[in-house]
């Protein structure tokens, strides 16, 4: 990439950045509530977001800036295999539709703010609560760091070098998140998402037109993969099929276990808001599928890049006039701010409710919770920034990959109780530990690849390690539960009328899943 500063692009970028900064601070007064007096206000925007705000907010923080950079980069590098993001972000919605309204009801009735709150309220186990909270915080940190990587890529494309621009952007983000809480990213998400929609719709019409149509784009990409030796291509090799499907399924189950996506769910006004969003959010998936194709357009445009992550910025710079390239880069950079803000809020909520309140100050007031969370969000962001400044980027990538497999291990503790109270906390904790231990060790010993292999009848099958770890997790949890139930038949000192209430009101929902 050139070091020439692109003044037109940069001016447009600065204009939009200033716009969202003002919006971020003004957001504190939007749908105003007492932001400093209750964590529900700072950390969940007052639990009042309706269908459209939730659509923009969840769309804005689930489909991150890093996605816009990384998915086309992966497709550029490995072809069809990189497309697993598409089935993943389709099958996630039937799951969201069936499960998340139930979770929302539990959280709403008891005033829970985090996944670990739900787990503690259900099982009465401080250990399981802490396991879920720490998993959420640790899995989120590298994810925030990757948003910085995404932002850094487009800032570099505009010719700015050094780390000062990123540091400045992040400090501003940290300040308005501190003052406005979840309202800031919710408001900025409107700008971000509309900009991204414009960029992608223009790109998928204009770029193929300049390159000779989609057939030519696919043909050029197919030729490029054949020239590289044909280990990957426009369709999957037989040995890639199982990894493809298991990555899609495992990622879909993990997606709404993350603190940032759950924060979007808990901030919704009603269970029906979430159901409607399960119907409407796939619009973003269509967008993601088109974004992924930018990777093939990179081959058709014959651009050369130092790393695949530069494909999208380079493509825009090559094919767009500089003002529209600037607009596109602004969209991606602002696209990093929304998820980074929601992630830090989700992690801060976990720290406040499940570490600080549980272990340091159990008698904390509502205003005290808000104050602790605001500080925690600053610490989380500074941590992510330090991560990027002082450690190799590859660490963030590796840790984010591990984070996906870790967060998936909180699935049984969080979701199973919505349908059955058979499992015991001790079993779930043991299953969680087994899943994390085996999954981490396997990914680590495979050189940080997310795949594990199993030899069956002379054949070797590769699959997503997170899904394998989840199966182990559930098996261990079940066996341990059987043992615990034999030793302590009456067990379960804690009540969870809230959950059972759901069984009685809607038995058909429980039956069918």
């Amino acid at each position, binding site marked *: 990439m050139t070091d020439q500063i692109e003044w037109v692009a940069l001016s447009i970028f600065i204009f939009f950045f200033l716009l969202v900064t003002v919006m971020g601070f003004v957001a504190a007064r939007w749908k105003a509530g007492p932001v400093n007096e209750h964590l529900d206000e700072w950390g969940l925007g007052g639990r009042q977001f309706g269908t459209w705000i939730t659509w923009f907010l969840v769309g804005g923080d689930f489909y991150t800036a890093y996605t816009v950079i990384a998915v086309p980069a992966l497709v550029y590098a490995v072809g069809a295999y990189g497309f697993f993001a598409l089935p993943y972000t389709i099958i996630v919605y039937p799951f969201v539709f069936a499960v998340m309204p139930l979770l929302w009801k539990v959280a709403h009735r008891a005033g829970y703010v985090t996944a670990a709150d739900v787990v503690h309220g259900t099982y009465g186990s401080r250990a399981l609560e802490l396991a879920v909270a720490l998993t959420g915080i640790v899995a989120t940190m590298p994810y925030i760091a990757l948003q910085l990587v995404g932002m850094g890529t487009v800032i570099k494309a505009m010719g700015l070098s050094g780390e000062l621009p990123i540091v400045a952007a992040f400090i501003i983000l940290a300040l308005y998140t501190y003052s406005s809480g979840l309202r800031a990213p919710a408001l900025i998400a409107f700008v971000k998402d509309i900009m991204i929609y414009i960029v992608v719709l223009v790109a998928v019409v204009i770029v193929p037109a300049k390159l000779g149509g989609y057939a030519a784009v696919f043909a050029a990409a197919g030729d490029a993969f054949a020239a590289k030796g044909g280990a990957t291509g*426009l369709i999957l090799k037989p040995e890639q099929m199982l990894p493809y*499907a298991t990555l899609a399924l495992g990622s879909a189950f993990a997606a709404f276990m993350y603190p940032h996506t759950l924060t979007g769910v808990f901030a919704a006004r009603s269970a029906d808001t979430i159901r409607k969003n399960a119907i409407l959010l796939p619009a973003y998936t269509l967008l993601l599928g088109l974004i992924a194709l930018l990777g093939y357009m990179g081959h058709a445009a014959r651009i050369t890049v130092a790393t695949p992550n530069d494909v999208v910025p380079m493509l825009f710079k090559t094919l767009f006039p500089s003002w529209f390239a600037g607009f596109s880069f602004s969209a991606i950079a602002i696209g990093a701010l929304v998820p980074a803000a929601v992630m830090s809020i989700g992690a801060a909520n976990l720290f406040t409710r499940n570490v600080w309140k549980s272990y340091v100050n159990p008698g904390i007031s509502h205003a005290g919770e808000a104050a602790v969370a605001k500080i925690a969000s600053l610490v989380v962001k500074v941590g992510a920034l330090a991560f990027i400044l002082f450690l190799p980027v590859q660490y963030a990538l590796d840790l984010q990959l591990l984070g996906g497999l870790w967060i998936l291990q909180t699935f049984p503790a969080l979701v199973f109780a919505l349908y059955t109270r058979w499992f015991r906390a001790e079993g779930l904790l043991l299953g969680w530990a087994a899943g994390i231990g085996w999954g981490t060790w396997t990914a680590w010993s495979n050189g940080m690849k997310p795949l594990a292999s199993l030899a069956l009848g002379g054949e070797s099958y590769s699959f997503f390690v997170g899904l394998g770890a989840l199966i182990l997790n559930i098996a261990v949890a079940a066996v341990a539960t059987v043992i615990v139930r034999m030793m302590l038949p009456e067990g379960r000192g804690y009540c969870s009328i809230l959950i059972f209430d759901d069984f009685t009101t809607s038995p058909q929902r429980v039956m069918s899943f």
Partner: protein
Amino acid sequence: MWMLLLLPFIGLLWVPFYNFLEPALFGFPFFYWYQLAWVPISSLLIWLVYRGQPHDEAR
């Protein structure tokens, strides 16, 4: 009705259903337009299930 929600899982996770180049549509190989087509189909299926269930809260 709730069984409809399983269809996207079956249609997308059984890769041998769609791991082909032909027939292409508007220049998109089958692998790509088949999966993209599942986006509106899934929305429609979820909507059908949503429509068929009692709306338990106005808020």
